């Protein structure tokens, strides 16, 4: 439904998005993951025509955004929940949207009820809204026109845990009814529970994409297993005899074999296991590994499976210092 085709966006010498291609299917939630400044927002802004692409293009349902008549009725977007007039009430902001799209007035009440903004809250001006309330209002605005496609940039930002759970349910139900959802986040756990498909982006390039299992099976170290038995010494010898490479790690062993192979070896050797798990990097390690290509961003120790890894220094925010569109008043 959303097709990004070899999209590149440069700002002078800085490349914010570098030859990015991917597609979002209807009926699925696509998670767009990457650290700060990876190019997620820029890609989404190109999708809705706010930022011109340097090369490549984005089509939604086969059309360029510019060519969709009354686009709010087809594509709901939330790019920045705070980008609304601070002096307007929540209700007024939705009313303006509904009026532009030619929707009946009661649509505003429906949406306010859907996102859980009360009548009193809807009468307050946006400057008095918390980030979570702005986010809810933004989601309501995106859903106003009953669109087939949702493009949400960091929608969970500022939502409380209950709000995040609510949003997950909302988007899941939306995709189940045939909608296309693209949501971005820099927080993996926010996305992995809801996304059917994940696209990992770092430094403007797509570094991996696929569903959870595909991503994990391609990860480095996916074919090693961590195992602990009551007698590691004996079990280690048995494994070596069976032809597997074994390294002692912490209180257990790292075996270059699949969990199933190690389990069978334990059965044959009659070893009692107290722990058996995949030695592949978790999704989070994978995410960090893939998206950090420079030394300063790298997590010390590589894929983290030491028992207490040293705390990595806070990676610097490598946000693009992009020229702004105009002076801000």
């Amino acid at each position, binding site marked *: 439904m959303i097709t990004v085709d070899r999209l590149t966006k440069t700002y002078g010498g800085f490349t914010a998005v570098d030859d990015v291609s991917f597609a979002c299917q209807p009926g699925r939630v696509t998670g767009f993951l990457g650290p700060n400044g990876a190019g997620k927002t820029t890609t989404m802004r190109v999708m809705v025509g706010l930022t011109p692409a340097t090369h490549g293009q984005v089509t*939604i349902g086969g059309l360029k955004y510019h060519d969709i008549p009354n686009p*709010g009725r*087809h594509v709901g977007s939330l790019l*920045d929940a705070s980008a*609304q007039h601070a002096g307007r009430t929540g209700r007024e902001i939705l009313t303006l949207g509904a*009026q532009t799209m030619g929707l009946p007035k009661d649509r505003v009440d429906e949406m306010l009820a859907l996102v859980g903004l009360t009548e009193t809250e809807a009468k307050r001006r946006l400057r008095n809204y918390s980030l979570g309330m702005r986010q809810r209002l933004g989601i309501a605005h995106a859903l106003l026109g009953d669109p*087939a496609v949702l493009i949400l940039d960091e929608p969970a930002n500022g939502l409380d845990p209950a709000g995040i759970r609510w949003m997950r349910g909302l988007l899941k139900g939306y995709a189940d009814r*045939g909608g296309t959802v693209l949501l971005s986040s820099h927080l993996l756990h926010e996305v992995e529970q809801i996304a059917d498909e994940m696209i990992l982006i770092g430094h403007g390039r797509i570094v991996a994409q696929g569903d959870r299992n595909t991503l994990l099976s391609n990860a480095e170290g996916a074919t090693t297993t961590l195992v602990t038995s009551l007698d590691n010494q004996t079990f280690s010898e048995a494994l070596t005899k069976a032809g597997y490479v074994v390294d002692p790690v912490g209180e257990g062993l790292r075996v270059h074999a699949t969990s199933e192979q190690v389990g069978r070896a334990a059965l044959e050797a009659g070893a009692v296991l107290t722990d058996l798990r995949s030695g592949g990097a978790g999704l989070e390690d994978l995410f960090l590994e893939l998206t950090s290509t420079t030394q300063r961003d790298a997590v010390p120790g590589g894929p983290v499976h030491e028992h207490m890894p040293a705390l990595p220094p806070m990676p610097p925010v490598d946000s693009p210092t992009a020229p702004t*569109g105009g002076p801000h*008043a």
Partner: protein
Amino acid sequence: MSTASMVPPATLDVASTPRTPFVRLVQVEWRKMVDTRSGFWLLTITAGLLALVMALIVLVVGLNDFQVDARGISQGMTIPVSLLLPVFAILIVTSEWSQRTALTSFTLEPHRSRVVLAKLVAVTTLAVCTIAVAFVLGALTNVLCAAVTGNPLEWNLDGSELVWLVIQQMLFFAMGFAFGMLLLNTPGAIAIYYVIALMLPLMVWGTLYAIFDWAKDVLPWVDLGFAMAPLSTGADPLGRPVDVEAVTYVQTAFTALVWVGVPVALGMWRILRAEVK
């Protein structure tokens, strides 16, 4: 999602949604002008100033038994109109940037020139309404003055002058709009507008015009107000009656092009290709 099926279509059914009618865009822009506190107060203060000017004229005329005519009143009433209304024209453009609502406006209508045009129509309608109100109040003032002083009513306002006065107001108004488009910054656009439209003509051009002969030739090519003075007041900027010559029209067109046409074109170019943040 009314058409839920097992295999959802990967295209959009755009046949059911015609493109947003222009009238609706204008209505939305009109609503945006008056639904904020700044919009509300700007309108209220303009109305207050109109009433104040009206009251002052009646008071002064009543106390001094001073003869006043429609021409003088019309020039008095344009002051509040020309003072604050252009701020509306500036704000309607720049607030989209300072408040970052352009993000929503241009997402809901990606044809940005339509949004800008809708703004221009909305704010022009407001200007016409305000001028009409000012005109009615001015006529009322004239009647009141005559009643207070017992002097005969003077309706000496030349029809053509009135039309040109309205055109002049609209051009200044468009100038504010143009500066808003060009700078996309509220304080900057308001400051530059007041310098060019009010301060320079009053404090600099006026002095030069009164002292130097060359200024009388040059300034009508520089300032819109000086260029249009013979058309809208029937007099030169010093108040001496003059006849309208062909060159006056050329000067009017030229200054309008420089102060309205060029900034509008540049501003539109900027808005169309700007990255909306």
